């Protein structure tokens, strides 16, 4: 009797363990993010310059290459990149827990992420004199207590004129489904940006979004009205372009660089910038770095490198902080930091978000997937 029972339970139990172990190890489809978040060390050295090597948490691929060609090489600093695309916060937190900060700098960490680290005290504040100098070179809006902007982008509306009769003229009109019917796509991983654009649609002037406390309920009312028309929440820039190309959606709330690329490819697009959200990245120094002075000196060299920033922006289609660099470009108004463009954009309230991230992020996920 007992033996039978043991057998009855043991065989299925063994099968479950085996199946789960296989599921955990065998599925190539299962572990995409885990694999990509694992930083692969890519050493690259530039000519002589300073003393020690500066370690930069970077984005990998073409991004690191452009940074190396246009910022590192002219500076003469010895820089090594460690890739952690979109996982910089997790990496720095882990280094802090392990008790050893391995990175000196972070390249273009996304605004919301930078403010998360800043709130947790993991970023080195800029020395007062350097901050004043940087503000002189770049302009006040481009400099914070912990760094300056780089790789900045905006969210704009790209509307397929072949499919849509009346295209939205502003980003606020993206949320007006009655007057502007059509299938839509929106970013999956940018709750703060969506909240900011919904705020503008609900009546907050773009000049006030950076400091005004968002009315979350009101913003989600705006978002609720457009939810059924959003056919795709895109997870990557490539996906956002592909959705427009295949016609899966005809009105896309996408990154400016992607919208202009589709336009240049020959798509019949109308692009609305007014009321879009501005998302800066930041060059910043990690608190606990052994090379703080050198790291800040390297950052200063980037801020002052006008030609380098112009070439970098032309290659990457992301915006740069130095106004002189933007003037050199063929289509300067396409970049988020061009004064006329910047005036139309809503800067999110990052400080507020850093305090309310869990609340906003969870509500966003319920909105998107619920």
């Amino acid at each position, binding site marked *: 009797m007992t033996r*039978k029972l043991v*057998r*009855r*339970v043991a*065989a*299925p*139990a063994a*099968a*479950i363990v085996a*199946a*789960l*172990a*296989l*599921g*955990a*190890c*065998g*599925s*190539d*489809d*299962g*572990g*995409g*993010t885990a694999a990509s*978040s694992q930083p692969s060390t890519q050493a690259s050295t530039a000519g002589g310059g300073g003393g020690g090597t500066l370690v930069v948490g970077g984005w990998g691929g073409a991004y690191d290459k452009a940074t190396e060609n246009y910022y590192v090489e002219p500076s003469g600093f010895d820089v090594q990149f460690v890739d952690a695309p*979109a*996982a910089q*916060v*997790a990496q720095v*937190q882990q280094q802090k827990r392990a008790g050893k900060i391995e990175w000196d700098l972070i390249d273009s960490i996304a605004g919301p992420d930078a403010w*998360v680290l800043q709130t947790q005290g993991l970023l080195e504040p800029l020395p007062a004199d350097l901050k004043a100098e940087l503000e002189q070179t770049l302009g006040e809006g481009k400099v914070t207590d912990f760094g300056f902007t780089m790789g900045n982008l905006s969210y704009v509306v790209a509307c397929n004129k072949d499919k849509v009769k009346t295209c939205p003229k502003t980003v606020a009109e993206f949320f007006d489904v009655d007057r502007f019917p059509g299938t839509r796509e929106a*970013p*999956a*991983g940018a709750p703060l940006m969506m909240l900011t654009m919904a705020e503008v649609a609900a009546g907050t002037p773009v000049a006030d979004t950076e400091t005004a406390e968002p009315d979350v309920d009101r913003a989600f009312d705006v978002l609720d009205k457009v939810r059924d028309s*959003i*056919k*795709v*929440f*895109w*997870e990557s820039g490539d*996906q956002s372009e*592909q959705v427009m190309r*295949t*016609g*899966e959606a005809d009105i896309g709330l996408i990154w400016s660089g992607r919208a202009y690329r589709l336009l240049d490819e020959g798509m019949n697009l109308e692009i609305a910038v007014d009321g879009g959200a501005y998302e800066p990245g930041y060059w910043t120094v990690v608190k606990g770095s052994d090379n703080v002075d050198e790291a800040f000196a390297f950052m200063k060299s980037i801020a002052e490198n006008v030609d380098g920033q112009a070439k970098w922006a032309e290659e990457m289609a992301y915006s740069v902080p130095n106004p002189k660099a933007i003037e050199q470009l063929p289509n300067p108004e396409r970049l988020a930091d061009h004064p006329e463009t910047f005036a139309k954009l809503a800067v999110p309230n990052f400080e507020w978000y850093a305090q309310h*991230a*869990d609340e906003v*992020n*969870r509500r966003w*996920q*319920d909105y*998107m*997937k*619920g």
Partner: protein
Amino acid sequence: MSQTATPAAAVPSPPSRRGGRRRWNPTVGNVRAFLMVLPLLALVVGLVLYPLVKLTIDSLTQDAGLGNYADVFASDATRKAMVTTLLASVVVTVITVTVGATLAWYLVTARSTLVKAVLWLAVLAPFWMGTVVKNYAIILLIANDGVLNDVLSALGLGRAQLLYTTGAVIMGIVYSMVPYAVFSLYGVFVGIDQSLLAAARSMGATRARALRTVLLPLAMPGIVASAALVFAISIGFYVTPVLLGGGQAPFMASVISSNIFGYYDYGFASAASVLLLLVAVVVLAAALLAVGRERLMRAVA
């Protein structure tokens, strides 16, 4: 299987003809057997058991502690993702095992070498392709301007949204999982004596009846094992829901991933992972116990 296996140790080995030399014996002593599986055991402990224990502890101690679980239950997105992931995995399992069993049966019984070669190629091709390639192939087929919609439109049925739906995700997972089902079921079917089917037919059973009353009971344990494998792998799919379902697709792997990498909410993510694992174990245990009991009753009868 257990009722047919005869423990080799119980069979008394005949005395060796050449006195001094011991005959080779396929069974291994307990100590040696333990030493032989030790490396595997170490791997399982290090790479499966330790992370699972750590994950469970983290889910109870990090961020909100026990409140992590309350947060997970309070989240519409996570509840919906849990239900969708499990239902979709059940649907995937049923389709995959049905298709896999059919293919495996033809692979065992087909006489034509050409047919076998073509079938094997069809089974192996998705197995050899990378995840992203597989998913993009499906995008090309079912996109708004894809082949399938072109056909629908030419037939005057208009274009339908096929991509970025739960159906598309299910299709993608099935495509990836069919080889797993075929491999495991091929082994099962090869081991079944086909003359039993011939005997059933000679006694007047129709082809369908012979398959149902002779083949199916013999293959059932293998089919259930194959289904358990497919189900366990399906619940963890991450890339396919993102590429074919979009960000709105409510699947647990993407909820967990975005809470780790997008929102740095480790407590929430680990609690969600533990719950997914628990639910999966319960579902699998229920399915296997049910079959275990049935097998036992058949053995008694």
